[in-house]
């Protein structure tokens, strides 16, 4: 039996307010692309739905722009709501 693998989700700003946590470990599964990840996160945290519609994902501290991207075991994935620094 394969050992369970996981990845880490990070939540900031409005995403943190919606999930009431700043991070969590989620069990990894293959072929988890951004569409499937969004569906999985909305299922866990329905309040994230409107935020994910306007946010980007960062994977291991880089914005994702590759449409074929899928989550890998041990990835650190962050929801990046519209930024407002400065």
């Amino acid at each position, binding site marked *: 039996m394969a050992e369970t693998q996981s990845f880490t989700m990070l939540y900031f700003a*409005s995403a943190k307010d919606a999930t009431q946590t700043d991070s969590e470990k989620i069990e990894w599964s293959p072929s988890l692309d951004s569409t499937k990840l969004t569906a999985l996160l909305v299922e866990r945290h329905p309040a994230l739905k409107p935020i994910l519609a306007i946010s980007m994902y960062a994977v291991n501290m880089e914005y994702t722009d590759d449409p074929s991207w899928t989550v890998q075991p041990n990835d650190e994935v962050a929801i990046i*709501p519209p930024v407002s620094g*400065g």
Partner: protein
Amino acid sequence: MTSNHKDFVCITSDPIRLEAVANLVHDPKAGAVSTFSGTTRDNFEDKVVKTLAYEAYIPMAEKSIQGLIDEARVKFDIMHVAIYHKIGDCPVGDTSVVIAVSSAHRRSGLEAVSWLIDELKVKVPIWKKEVYSENTGGGATWKANSTLP
């Protein structure tokens, strides 16, 4: 080529002083130190802002600011660069961000500072929360910068 040029990137909960950040980039070969200082406003439309707070994805914000500095060095003829951004509570009127760039001549430094703050505002994972005065309806909002610099 840029081996003796220094970068200072800092995300801090301490107050930021413009002069202290500007001093970091001084250089005997620099004819200009160009700076931008961002301060927090006390109003949004018809609401009075009571308090503000910044939050950052700190390691990614630092990496992202460093990336902007690297890009700026390719675009502009500049020497040292310092970028400080506040996180945590930031009272109205306080400095939230300082960018300081030294350069041999003023134009490249001024252009680099302008480019850096525009890019920082659309790319770096930092968020501002405004809490409004009860007298103007109360509530709080996570702000969003325009995506067009």
